């Protein structure tokens, strides 16, 4: 047993981080906010070329043949870079929807409770919903500028992918939580008030320390669930990662003061996306109920 990532796993993560830094840095992120084009088709293909979507497809089917542990590492990086688009659904569709594996197709899923579906207008397919193009859908203004929403008459949650969808979404949340921590720490070291960096004040320091604790606990939960594939651990991972992403974004905003409340700072983008993801695949209430049943059945 060695729970630490292997060298290959570290290399894989570093590779994706490098790709995203070069291809989807801060300027690209801000450009998508300005242009309101959320899914960058060129980036999507590049991710496809790098094996992002086909990562878990067997090599015989043209995939990379890796597993969930590798997938959560690369999704963590996408969450850190705040890459918009239905990354999880497209990854889950690799092997069933043509073009998904290569990143030439954009596949979304009706993974939100109720009738809202994300990226409906930009998608080529909806997971488990053939003939979606003829389904009537009405655009809805979205809280997250990079996650457009549509209201659809009937949008069943694709049950078959629920656990994996929840886990990969949790990995995106962890990446975001780690990123907002970095942003907060950097700002706390630069911004001066009362003649010293605000990070020297304990009230600020302690906010940052709690951010780290949340992100680390969530990260281990996500990695563990990826290794064991256990539904209870997966629910815990989603629960803790949602909380880490949402609360870290809030604390990051607080550390940034007035600047944090502006459109220019990236913090709000992380917070809004974290809110969207918290509603996807498995909500906190569902996770807690599942865990309660697990506990009572004595799975420990």
């Amino acid at each position, binding site marked *: *047993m*060695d*729970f*630490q*990532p*292997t060298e290959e*796993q570290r290399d894989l993560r570093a590779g994706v981080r490098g790709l995203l830094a070069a291809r989807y840095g801060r300027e690209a992120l801000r450009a998508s906010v300005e242009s309101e084009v959320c899914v960058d088709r060129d980036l999507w293909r590049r991710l496809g070329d790098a094996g992002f979507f086909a990562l878990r497809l067997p090599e015989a089917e043209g995939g990379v043949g890796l597993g969930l*542990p590798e997938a959560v590492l690369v999704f963590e990086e996408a969450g850190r870079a705040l890459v918009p688009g239905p990354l999880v659904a497209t990854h889950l569709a690799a092997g069933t929807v043509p073009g998904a594996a290569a990143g030439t197709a954009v596949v979304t899923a009706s993974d939100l409770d109720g009738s809202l579906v994300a990226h409906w207008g930009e998608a080529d397919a909806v997971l488990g919903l053939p003939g979606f193009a003829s389904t009537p859908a009405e655009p809805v203004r979205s809280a997250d500028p990079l996650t457009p929403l549509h209201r659809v008459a009937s949008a069943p949650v694709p049950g078959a992918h629920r656990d994996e969808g929840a886990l990969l979404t949790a990995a995106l949340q962890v990446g975001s939580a780690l990123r907002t*921590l970095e942003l907060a*720490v950097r700002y*706390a*070291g630069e911004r001066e008030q009362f003649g*010293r*960096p605000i*990070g*020297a*004040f*304990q009230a*600020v*320091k*302690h906010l*940052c*320390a*709690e951010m*780290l*604790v949340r992100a*680390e*606990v*969530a990260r*281990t*939960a996500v*990695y*563990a669930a*990826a*290794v*064991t594939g256990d539904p*209870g*651990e997966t*629910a*815990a*991972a989603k*629960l*803790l990662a949602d909380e880490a992403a949402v609360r870290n974004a809030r604390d990051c905003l607080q550390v940034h003061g007035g600047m944090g409340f502006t459109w220019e700072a990236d913090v709000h983008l992380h917070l809004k996306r974290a809110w969207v993801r918290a509603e996807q695949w498995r909500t906190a*209430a569902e*996770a*807690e*109920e*599942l*865990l*309660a*049943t*697990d*506990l*009572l059945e*004595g799975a*420990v």
Partner: protein
Amino acid sequence: MDLTPTEEEREFRARLREWLAKVLPELPAKPSPDDWPGRRAYDAGWQRRLYDAGYAGLHWPVDAGGQGAGPTRHLIFLEETERAGAPYVGANFVGLLHAGPTIAAEGTAEQRARWLPPVLRGDEVWCQGFSEPGAGSDLAALRTRAVRDGDEYVVTGSKIWTSHAEVADWCELLVRTTPVDADTPKHRGITWLAMPMDAPGVTVRPLRTLAGSTEFAEMFLDEVRIPVGHRVGAEDDGWRVTMVTLSFERGTAFVGEVVACRRTLGELARTAKANGRWDDPVVRRALGRLHGEFGALWRLTQWNVGESERSGGVPGTGGSVFKLAYSHARQELYDVAALVLGAGSLALDEEWVLDRLSSLSYTIAAGTSQIQRNIVAERILGLPKGR
């Protein structure tokens, strides 16, 4: 990332499980929480059984009398003993979990041979004399003085909150060997000594905790003579040795308790099912949430252990991250327990009510949450020092 046990680990677990099933029913009844001599005898008896069966000091180095097993095997040991409801380290806490490991890491061969085997056998109990009335979080402000007189230090001062002092044989004692003045930072001039508790001049006065027990004590030291050979590390280099002790205390000393909390949670769920509270979604969801959290904390433990194994054995600052998350989760656990038991949670004869009271100490002892947050912010995140 791999969590599958090796063949050897599987065998070790199976053997241990079998042994526990055999010996646990033979144990005497647990003494009352207030009967410290009784508790010491009970804890020492358990330690002796572990020793005789080859389970004492599993992860201690072989030349320190241990088994030299990897940390993973130690984790399996903690998991299995807790799962089986075996006694906890109790009075042996300091000796086994931090004084012992410190001596193993920093002591001379002679010191290891003198002090470590009796800890493993359960023959000698240690306590920790770090805190003083004027030096808690600001530990380096300690004032207990040691003046060199030939081959001895003459120690005068007082210590406080010393757990198990009433029944301890030895004390890991921090003293000031060089007075603080304008030129010496207060971290210099501190020395780590092993003090026999029966030395003339040592007075122990028990303090009553909020749980009503005498868990810890105040110690008065009046010209206590301690041989220079009892010094671990160099004179005035005690702060560095102390950091080793604290890293064990924060890094690994609470690990076994996570499993205990998971067991308690399972019991609570069954109790809630039996008394009808389970039907309340607030209670149910709170239990589910804690189940997820403690599961993650156990995984964090495995993660930290893997990391310290790679970096040479002494737990790193990850221990502060763990301690912060764990101490708060533990307190929430007992608050949820009160939800499950309603007014029943007021009856002091329930063991877990005492546990609820004692859980209040976890955010204070071994460095308060505020101090842990400072450590995380300054040493892990690199934020500037300040106040």
